[in-house]
């Protein structure tokens, strides 16, 4: 962006919000209403976990391994125990529970390993929990950590998945015998071999999809409280899925599930990192129970760097086969996936079923084979991070497709267009076991190309090159699978849980409505969007609907918020619940109006007799009658509420095209964005402003991966990017102005016609940026640069090619 001499850039066009009171009730669904959760978040009224103060509350701090791999020969806590304010110190020997953190997904070949709450004789990553200190005050607890003396016997460490799979690598888990956690494949190997044998052109590429650290702004935290009188254990914690945490923690702590309450107060972002069951929150809960006293554990940022489940961590060899007509005939993928030191909650699913199933991208590819080997290594457990498997798939597919277009001398946009799944072919069954629900891939492509000015770009690029300026354009036509998902299907794939969602819709006698959902938002604006959905279904005022989430004490069961599932699955559960309420209300209204139920029509909140619109009754009046119960039909019970469980028939498959235009300075390796255009199709939009915000944030994390972020370890397994000083979470000046637009292909899977939007930007962005940079550097012969594309890496890529080709510089 040559901003120095250019005039002030205008604000990119965006969706305009509207105050809810200015929206007609009939238009509430689909309106960009301002978020109702904002005033509390904007005025300091929000309640995050660390804001909770309980009487007599003690503070927990956790001692963590300073080495990535070591035997523990002894732990001396004597000095620490004598320090001011220290209440108690616990090590593995003190734990009187099974204390083994489980994984929630199995694979046929999975070698499961023990994951104790506190390390017993061995630590396997820097940050592995060793001891719990409880003290009267926060600082005292941290002081005491420093006084605990651990006698370590250091072992060799391995942090790279390919090296971890080497037979000479140090083995992390003796019970597994080797570091191979699983071997998995999908697709048809034989058909793929044949496709490659017959192909006119084959292109291959080795890529590393680097480990990322989620960096939710709120570090993980828990406040636990135990009531011995009735054995009630309450844990307020930064969670994306309180019910899932309750289920897993009840097993880990041997505490009855119905006596365990998990409550997520306001949660400061998650991006996957607050899905998983870690040792830490369970240790806080165990401590509260042991001491019969409330405790707080608040992770420091350093702890989040060391212990939050990381994302990605793939090393992949990919090949693509193209025939002489420019059609893609086959795709072959071999991936080594880093799982870290232990199996995290959804870790086995992420590099397998959330990855290999997306290898068809937006394209008709007759033969695909993808094999993945999961590797234990001395890094923190690796699990779902925004996108979870799908960014890795989209990255390798779109990098290969870009190179394939180059190899056959085709325009990258037209090559993609030629290979798109035809809109008439939906639902489309891919060779990798999924059926795309709907799609119309040319629409976002055309819109994006138009917005970015693709037609004139090559000319501009050529002119710029004449002046020694290197512009590049990068496309990403991504597919995403989300709205997790049909329980029967995920069960067949290895999930140890269903992935339905629940929605409770309850009228009060005065006609106001409580809507509760088993999802658990942490920034996505569910209070607003769910109220829009329920108000629309019931025909009541938006302001009359209150939304509740995130507390196992007063909600139906739920599966939580991740995998872009809340609107598609949770929203649909609320629709189902609301429709059940309307059905019951209709019977009451029919009775009151002295008509047959089948003659009653319902619209905009009113029941009326067909053909006699003046004989009508509002649903809120019906609610009062339902609770008065003075005059109900014989077969109708009092009350007006329903709890629905919704289990979709399929995933949903959002798609779109993102285009990055960059200028690269080959002398310095600097990359400037000239433009970033995103056209996404996430089906119907409940609140377009919230959709836009999700896309923006997703793109920022995708650009973060492309240009800035990456967890790095030294040879001893020490994290060298363990702070915000060293790990580049993008700042305001790192992210370009984004131009966003959408197309709408409603999903046939759910009653709202929605798809997911939370992860789309993160899935789409990295390859758009990398493709653009590689395009810019085409004159230098640069074919690939590994992410993050730091200035140094870009400069080296140019420099190496210059050397290789005998260039003059």
């Amino acid at each position, binding site marked *: 962006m040559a*901003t120095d001499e250019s005039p*002030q*850039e205008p*604000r*990119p066009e*965006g969706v305009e*919000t509207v105050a809810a009171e200015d929206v007609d009730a009939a238009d509430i669904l689909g309106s960009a209403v*301002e*978020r109702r*959760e*904002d*005033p*509390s*978040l*904007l*005025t*300091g*009224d*929000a*309640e*995050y976990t*660390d*804001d909770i*103060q309980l009487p007599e509350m003690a503070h927990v701090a956790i001692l963590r391994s300073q080495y990535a791999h070591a035997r523990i020969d002894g732990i001396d806590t004597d000095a620490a125990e004598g320090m001011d304010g220290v209440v108690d110190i616990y090590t593995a020997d003190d734990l009187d529970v099974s204390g083994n953190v489980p994984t929630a997904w199995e694979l046929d070949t999975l070698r499961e390993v023990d994951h104790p709450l506190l390390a017993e004789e061995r630590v396997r990553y820097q940050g592995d929990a060793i001891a719990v200190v409880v003290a009267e005050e926060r*600082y005292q607890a941290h002081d005491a950590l420093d006084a605990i003396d651990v006698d370590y016997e250091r072992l060799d460490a391995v942090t790279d998945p390919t090296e971890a799979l080497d037979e000479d690598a140090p083995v992390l888990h003796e019970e597994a015998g080797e570091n191979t956690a699983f071997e998995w494949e999908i697709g048809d190997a034989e058909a793929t071999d044949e496709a490659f044998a017959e192909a006119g052109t084959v292109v291959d590429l080795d890529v590393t999809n680097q480990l990322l650290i989620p960096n*939710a*702004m*709120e*570090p993980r935290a828990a406040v636990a409280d135990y009531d011995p009188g009735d054995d009630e254990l309450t844990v307020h914690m930064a969670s994306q899925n309180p019910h899932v945490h309750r289920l897993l923690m009840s097993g880990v702590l041997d505490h009855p599930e119905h006596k365990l309450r998990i409550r997520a107060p*306001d*949660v*400061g*972002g998650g991006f996957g990192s607050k899905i998983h069951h870690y040792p830490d929150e369970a240790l806080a809960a165990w401590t509260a129970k042991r001491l019969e006293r409330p405790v707080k554990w*608040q992770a*420091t*940022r*350093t702890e989040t760097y060391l212990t939050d489940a990381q994302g990605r961590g793939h090393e992949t060899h990919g090949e693509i086969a193209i025939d002489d007509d420019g059609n893609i005939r086959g795709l072959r993928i071999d991936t080594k996936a880093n799982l870290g030191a232990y199996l995290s909650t959804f870790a086995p699913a992420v590099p397998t079923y959330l990855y290999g199933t997306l290898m068809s991208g937006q394209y008709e590819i007759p033969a695909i084979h993808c094999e993945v080997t999961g590797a234990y290594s001395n890094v923190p457990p690796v699990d779902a991070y925004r996108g979870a498997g799908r960014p890795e798939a989209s990255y390798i597919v779109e990098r290969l497709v870009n190179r394939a277009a180059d190899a056959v001398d085709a325009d990258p946009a037209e090559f993609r267009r030629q290979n798109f799944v035809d809109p008439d072919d939906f639902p489309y069954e891919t060779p990798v076991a999924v059926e795309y629900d709907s799609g119309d891939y040319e629409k976002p492509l055309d819109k994006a190309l138009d917005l970015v000015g693709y037609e004139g770009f090559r000319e501009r690029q050529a002119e710029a090159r004449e002046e020694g300026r290197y512009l590049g354009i990068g496309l990403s036509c991504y597919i995403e699978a989300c709205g997790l998902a049909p329980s029967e299907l995920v069960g067949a794939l290895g999930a140890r849980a269903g992935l339905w969602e629940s929605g409770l819709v309850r009228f009060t006698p005065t006609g106001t409505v409580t809507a509760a959902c088993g999802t658990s938002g*942490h*920034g*996505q*604006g569910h209070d607003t969007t769910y109220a829009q959905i329920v108000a629309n279904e019931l025909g009541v005022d938006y302001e009359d609907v209150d939304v509740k989430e995130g507390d196992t004490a007063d909600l139906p069961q739920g599966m939580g918020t991740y995998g872009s599932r809340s609107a598609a699955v949770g929203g649909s559960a609320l629709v189902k619940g609301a429709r059940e309420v309307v059905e019951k209300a209709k019977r009451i209204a029919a009775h009151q109006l002295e008509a047959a139920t089948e003659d009653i029509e319902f619209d905009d909140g009113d029941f009326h007799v067909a053909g006699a619109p003046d004989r009508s009754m509002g649903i809120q009046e019906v609610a009062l009658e339902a609770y008065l119960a003075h005059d109900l039909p014989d077969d109708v019970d009092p009350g007006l509420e329903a709890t629905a469980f919704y289990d979709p028939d399929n995933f949903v498959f959002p798609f779109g095209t993102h285009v990055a235009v960059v200028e690269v300075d080959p002398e310095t390796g600097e990359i400037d964005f000239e433009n970033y255009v995103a056209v996404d199709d996430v089906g119907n939009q409940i609140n377009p*402003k*919230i959709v*836009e*915000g999700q896309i*923006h*944030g997703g*793109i*920022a*994390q995708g650009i973060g991966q492309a240009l800035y972020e990456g967890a790095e370890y030294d040879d001893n397994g020490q994290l060298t990017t363990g*702070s*915000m*000083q060293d790990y580049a*979470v993008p*700042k*305001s*000046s790192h*992210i370009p102005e*984004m131009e966003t637009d959408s197309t709408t292909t409603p999903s046939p899977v759910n009653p709202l016609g929605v798809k997911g939007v939370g992860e789309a*930007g993160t899935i789409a962005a990295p390859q758009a940026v990398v493709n653009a940079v590689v395009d810019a550097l085409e004159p230098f012969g640069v074919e690939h640069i590994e992410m993050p594309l730091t200035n140094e890496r870009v400069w080296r890529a140019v420099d190496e090619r210059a050397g290789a080709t005998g260039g003059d510089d």
Partner: protein
Amino acid sequence: MEREITLTVNGTDHELSVEPRTLLVHALRDEMGYTGPNVGCESSMCGACTVHVDGEAVKACTELAVRAEDAEITTIEGMGEEGDMHPLQESFQAEHGLQCGYCTPGMVMTASAFLEENPDPEREEIREALEGNLCRCTGYQNIVNAVESAAEEMRDSPMSPETATGETAADGGTVEEGGD
């Protein structure tokens, strides 16, 4: 060894006793109950803890409470409340400049100090001004929009910066905390 300090927060005088090492953000949050400023990094990198100390935006996670002796502090709670929000708070809502809200108090406090110095900023200047405040949710664009819109609103309906931030709000009395 605790020390007695007095300071004014959002117009209310406070007397409290803190350790010399107590961070201002912990004194505000844990001793005085102002939980608006959030702790995101304990290292001045993320800015979620930003408050105004004598009118300047300061990261309260790397400031000692004892250094705030006699200071006038404004936290997000002092900017406005539900139903009577500051133009910046209103524009963050209108422009969808927040998602999870954790960085938001710091963003608003940094932005308000910035707008006092530069009431008519360019977008690039806003981005530079916010470099010390990290947001992981929004991708920043709607935050920049919010600051830009609020700047325009504040220029169109001028209030003195003091009135706008509540920094000279009526004395709410004296409260004693800590030291027990």
